[in-house]
């Protein structure tokens, strides 16, 4: 390994999921025709004024509360100036020295090598979170550049970490955990492809054991969570190589090119903007009362990692199941609702994680992404299905078929089992006959079992299940076979 270590700080921009834009009542959503989600305020027409979006402020405070930030009593708005055609006013209303959230941390999990057990957890410290307006989008087409102001003015939070990340994998884990937290709480969809979450990274290297930070380089155009990891990996190698060769790292902004797998210089320190921040005279500072704060806190869901620990400890669910279940709010809510009807956490969780997710992805294609609520299945319906298994009415094997059928047809488990005659057989007399036939048909397995190879009995059992089309009660079959072979 290298004698150098990397120090990384991230600046993550996340579009909040709100009904309207940050400073006006124009709506915002992804995918509309260019320049249709605008009005005179969005376009910065002369004479227009911004007004605050309460929902965006509340969501930002909620993100802060979720991540343990300090929410100050007073927060204010500032203008940040630079000229660029994607910004209608040539200044962005942002927050400079009194952001809505200060400090805080994001709990991350470093995936363990085996992936079957929980990895190490640690916290990445945050500097601040502030609220601002998004800018439009430029498309360059040969001689022309086109501007789409749909995105302009969308509420955007910027989450800034301390230089508290020490590897590309940690950065990856941070973004994953942050996205899970924000998605779970309904703050944002955090789809990086749609620009709902964007990340810039500041990275420097230093000799291991050194306390002093090296010269930092800002990385831009990291367009996916993997892109962040790949870009950082390249840049760290580049910097270490440079330093080892006796070179000096210069403070600059570099752009990650995912196609060429390299970073290149965008602008140097000398070209850095002087943003000329000053308090926005059109907006009053906001005062955040304890009551407001606490009512916003009460509306927040449990964090995914807390929920995972609870499911593992209280419900004895395995890590492999909870790691799929817990980041997904729809699944968790469905799970808990089913659990309230029928108390078999493992049975319910297994079918959600193993079967329901694949049904969802099968039903989805391209832009037509199905949600859990699009499927004709209810928590009560799932609970009924698991209860049929637990009451030995159907086997686990049959349950999967029934589940699939439920999703196809919307019928209840009971109806499907009745219509298709899927009730498992517990008729000892009938099963004894079939078991005897199968013992006769598998002399080799019988021999092996009698010689002490316990697993050999599964081949005979499989034959019985096959002969009964899965309807035999597996426990009963096991009992009969063992009696017959003893």
């Amino acid at each position, binding site marked *: 390994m290298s004698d150098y270590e990397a120090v990384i700080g991230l600046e993550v921009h996340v579009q909040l999921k709100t009904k309207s834009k940050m400073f006006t009542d124009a709506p915002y959503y992804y995918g509309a025709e260019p320049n249709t989600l605008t009005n005179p305020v969005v376009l*910065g*027409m002369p*004479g227009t004024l*911004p007004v605050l979006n309460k929902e965006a402020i509340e969501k930002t405070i909620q993100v802060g509360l979720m991540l343990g930030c300090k929410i100050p009593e007073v927060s204010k708005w500032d203008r940040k100036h630079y000229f660029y055609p994607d910004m209608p006013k040539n200044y962005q209303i942002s927050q400079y020295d009194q952001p809505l959230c200060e400090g805080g941390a994001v709990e991350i999990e470093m995936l363990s090598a085996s992936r079957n057990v929980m990895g190490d957890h640690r916290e990445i410290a945050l500097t601040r979170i502030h609220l601002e307006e998004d800018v439009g989008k430029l498309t360059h087409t040969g001689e022309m550049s086109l501007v789409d102001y749909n995105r302009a003015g969308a509420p955007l939070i910027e989450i800034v970490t301390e230089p508290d990340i020490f590897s590309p994998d940690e950065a990856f884990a941070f973004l994953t955990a942050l996205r899970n937290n924000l998605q779970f709480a309904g703050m944002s969809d955090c789809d990086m492809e749609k620009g709902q979450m964007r990340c810039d990274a500041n990275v420097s290297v230093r000799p291991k054991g050194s306390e002093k930070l090296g010269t930092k380089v800002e990385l831009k155009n990291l367009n996916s969570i993997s892109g962040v990891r790949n870009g950082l990996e390249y840049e760290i190698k580049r910097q270490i190589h440079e330093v080892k060769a006796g070179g000096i790292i210069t403070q600059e902004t570099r752009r990650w090119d995912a196609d060429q797998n390299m970073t290149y210089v965008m602008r140097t320190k000398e070209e850095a903007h002087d943003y*000329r921040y000053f308090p926005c*005279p059109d907006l*009053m500072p906001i005062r955040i009362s304890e009551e407001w704060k606490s009512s916003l806190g009460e509306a927040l869901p449990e964090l995914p990692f807390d929920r995972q620990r609870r499911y593992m400890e209280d419900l004895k669910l395995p890590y492999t199941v909870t790691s799929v279940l817990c980041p997904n709010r729809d699944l968790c809510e469905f799970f808990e609702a089913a659990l309230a009807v029928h108390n078999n956490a493992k049975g319910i969780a297994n079918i959600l994680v193993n079967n329901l997710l694949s049904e969802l992805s099968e039903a989805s294609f391209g832009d037509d992404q199905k949600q859990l609520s699009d499927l004709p299945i209810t928590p009560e319906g799932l609970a009924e299905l698991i209860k049929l298994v637990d009451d030995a009415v159907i086997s686990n094997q049959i349950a999967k078929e029934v589940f699939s059928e439920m999703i196809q047809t919307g019928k209840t488990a009971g109806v499907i089992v009745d219509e298709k005659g899927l009730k498992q057989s517990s008729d000892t007399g009938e099963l004894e006959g079939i078991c005897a036939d199968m013992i006769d048909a598998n002399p080799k397995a019988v021999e092996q079992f009698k010689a002490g190879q316990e697993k050999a009995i599964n081949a005979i059992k499989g034959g019985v299940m096959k002969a009964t089309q899965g309807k035999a009660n597996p426990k009963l079959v096991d009992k009969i076979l063992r009696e017959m072979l003893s």
Partner: protein
Amino acid sequence: MEIYKTASQLRSALESGEVSSEEWVKQLIQRIESLDGEINSHLGLDKESALGQAKAADQRRANGESLGALDGIPISLKNNMAIKGQKLTCGSHILENFESPYDATVVEKLKAAGAVIFGRLNMDEFAMGSSNETSYFGTTRNPWNLERTPGGSSGGSAAAVAAGFCPVSLGSDTGGSIRQPASFCGVYGLKPTYGRISRYGLVAFASSLDQIGPLAREVDDLADVLTAVSGLDPKDSSSYPETVTGGSSELNGEVKPVIGVPKEFFEYPMDEEVLSSVKAAIAYYEKQGCEVREISLPNSHLSVSAYYVIATAEASSNLARFDGIRYTHRSKDAKDLMEVYFKSRGEGFGEEVKRRIILGTFALSSGYHDAYYLKAQKVRTLIREDFSKNFEDGVDLILTPTAPTTAFKIDESIQDPLTMYLNDIFTIPANLAGLPGLSVPCGASSENLPIGFQLIAPHFKEMSLLQAAKLYENGNEAHLVRPPLGN
């Protein structure tokens, strides 16, 4: 028929059936066409729209559905207020071809009150100036003397009212831009409390100082317009929740305010005739039984300096949007993005605007921000406290000259920005403190140039200002004197 009517006189004429709104608007248009060529107070006038609105008002009146005090009354607007479908140039080349896609809140409110949205009035470019000489569309001339400026930046609004082109106009006041031209043109000009009237649709010069207000030839008219356009606007977070109510019916002039006269204001160099007229006004109030006290506003000498830092800083930000990309003038010579910015702005803005953008950009730039912008904000607090102390001590109103001089000659001061800036020395403190101020006509100089005095009240006490002005109006005739326009 007498065309030189105030709004309340016109209302009586409309009510009695002496004239219809449409007939009167037609006559005003004729008057403008015959007399405004020299004065140049108008940048535009949508005759069809005005006549249509006037007809609609007449119809309402005929149906017994009149909307109240302003129904059918033409009101002209400084051309920095957005009127849907009409040009909004702000006196600038850079917005020469820009038509507003929306109505300012004041326009919505005036329309709702039945007023006829009338002329678009000339102004200093982006309201930066004290003489209307910085207008890209030519200077406005003072109706009292065509060699003189009407003051500024609402010079068009003051000249149009003085010339009888409209009974009432709206102007905007950032450092005195309603009051100083009102004083130069012999009309009333009210700058209400900051936040009293929505700024939505007023093209921003300095957002923390800008305030829309009415100009008129009678105190009652100011009250009626203020009542119609004030109040909370969900589109302007700096607008104040309470609306002025009652209008002119609340004014009786039977008040005896305690009047403070700040000694510092009388230590500045000013025209002898201005001084003696203002002193006469003070004497009048004393004679009416008002207590007059000498007071001190010790930090007022810092106000012009602080103002030119704050106002230019905000302006440099507010004017950044005029960039040649979308609705503004775009240079034909621009070859790349930087040239679009530099050349379009270089060609589109006039000298004074550029001077202020550069000054404001400097004041906000890294390393200078604290020494200039932050310090100016501290001065602003001191100035506000100076006023508060006096009001807490029982002073109801403060009386000062509106401007140190009468209307100066065109081309006399435009080459000397500092002298021009000092013309706002008496009006700027009220903007910095957010206080309402009113210029009241109080006579003329030996050269027959109008003189005004200024009244300043505590926040949201516009009605006290108007009461006191009415008290003066009841015993004086300065507001009745007309400019010598040969009519």
